[in-house]
């Protein structure tokens, strides 16, 4: 098993930390993992993306251009990465602020309106957990309890009281993800 994922959006949307939590969870399940972020000044307020690879085998290249899954959180990233999906790959996107929707017909497209949902839950910070929940609904490669463990490891202690809220967000994501047929 090898799952090659790109997560892309704005800096501040929790793109890198979502990837980190997936990587932590992967480690807990004895997988090989790699987490390769975009880095540099463009992250300040600009776009951010991270490549996460989860695999049962030794990972060769941590930098790739063809993905099994793309988790897309803004228009620029959709424009940039839609064509980087392997045929049959999975694209999950948040419809917020999207004016040109996915067009490829040889991939599976899902939509999760996480920005909207996080607003409804009055906790914008759980946004990325809603997205992660949605992903895990379709590809349950990692277990929720490991995600929670991963959260504990990547969140500073003072935020641990937010973990139940994050768990709720994960579950909401699973509920609201919808398949888009083109």
């Amino acid at each position, binding site marked *: 098993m090898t799952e090659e994922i790109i997560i892309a959006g704005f800096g501040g949307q929790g793109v890198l930390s979502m990837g980190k939590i997936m990587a932590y969870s992967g480690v807990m399940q004895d997988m090989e993992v790699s987490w*390769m972020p975009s880095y540099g000044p463009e992250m300040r307020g600009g776009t951010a993306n991270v490549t996460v690879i989860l695999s049962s085998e030794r990972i060769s290249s941590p930098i790739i251009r063809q993905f099994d899954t793309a988790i897309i959180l803004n228009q620029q990233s959709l424009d940039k990465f839609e064509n980087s999906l392997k045929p049959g790959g999975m694209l999950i996107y948040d419809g917020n602020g999207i004016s040109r929707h996915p067009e490829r017909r040889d991939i599976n497209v899902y939509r999760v309106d996480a920005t909207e949902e996080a607003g409804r839950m009055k906790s914008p910070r759980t946004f990325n957990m809603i997205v992660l929940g949605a992903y895990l609904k379709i590809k349950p490669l990692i277990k929720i309890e490991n995600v929670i463990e991963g959260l504990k490891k990547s969140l500073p202690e003072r935020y641990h009281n937010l973990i139940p809220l994050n768990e709720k967000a994960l579950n909401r994501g699973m509920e609201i993800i919808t398949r888009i047929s083109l």
Partner: protein
Amino acid sequence: MERELRLMKGNEAVAEAAIRAGADGYFGYPITPQSEILEYLMEANPYQTTGMVVLQAESEVAAINMVYGGAACGKKVLTTSSSPGISLMQEGISYIAGAELPCLVVNVVRGGPGLGTIQPAQSDYFQAVKGGGHGDYHLIVLAPSSVQEMADFVGLGFDLAFKYRNPVMILSDGAIGQMMEKVWLSPYRERSKTVPDWATTGKLPSRQRNIITSLELNPERQEEFNRKLINKYNEIKEKEVRYEEFQCEDAEYLFVAYGTSARVCQKSVQIARNEGLKAGLLRPVTLFPFPSERIGTLSGRAKIILSVEMSSGQMLEDVLLSVNGEVPVYHFGRMGGIVTTPEEVVDFLKLKIMGG
């Protein structure tokens, strides 16, 4: 003590490994993409636990000279930087080589020349392997291609540095510095309580005074010293060559690549093999000493050899020397901070197979 599993960035792994390797001191100046090393050490505050000194220097010039001072006291000291900072250190590195001091210098390479880009590159190969500073000297150069090796090569680097009284460079790049992978950390080694007998620690009545210097005004004696260095480098070439092979047994198409490019090429080998091309990868782990002999041997079966590196073709020259004209050797790689993709490598190979 057991090894400990962590998920870490390559930069963090270097920092943690330095503490665990029993380093006595770290001196560095912030520069992207390696600032996490200094940041991690400041946060970890090892002075409280192991007594390791960590200091933010006012420049790389200062940092490398702090390393000189610490190393001359027989201490295990290191500095880390990225390309522009490493350029600034070259004078100090030359002095360290000339004074035969052990130390570790980590270069998390970014694209150049000049201020260049902060994205990963392998364009400092010549600087690391062929000298960098002035004078006849070599560094021992280790090229990690995973976060695990970023950690492992710190301990190994110190061991080699002290064994040969020679500066060791870990030549990494922004991708390996910034990415996170699983890493098994070695148990803590205690900081050494003894120092080598050449170190300046205060002259006791029981011994002659120790002088650490790279100056020799007498040409005969300087030449003698140069010969001594050559002998040392020859011994290193004989004993310390390290490399890794992937599917080289029957390889007709051989990729030679180190660091991040080697990771990329591992995937290229898979892709090429899926398409029926017998590809293999030789990954130099030490760049000095270079695995010339092994590449020479493998070239016997090879039809084409590609030196794949994120530069305009630097390691290429060492590959050419190893192959000695027996097989066509080409360079392939992206520059400017762009990481080559596995598919690009295979496409280039196919082009060459077709005689392009």
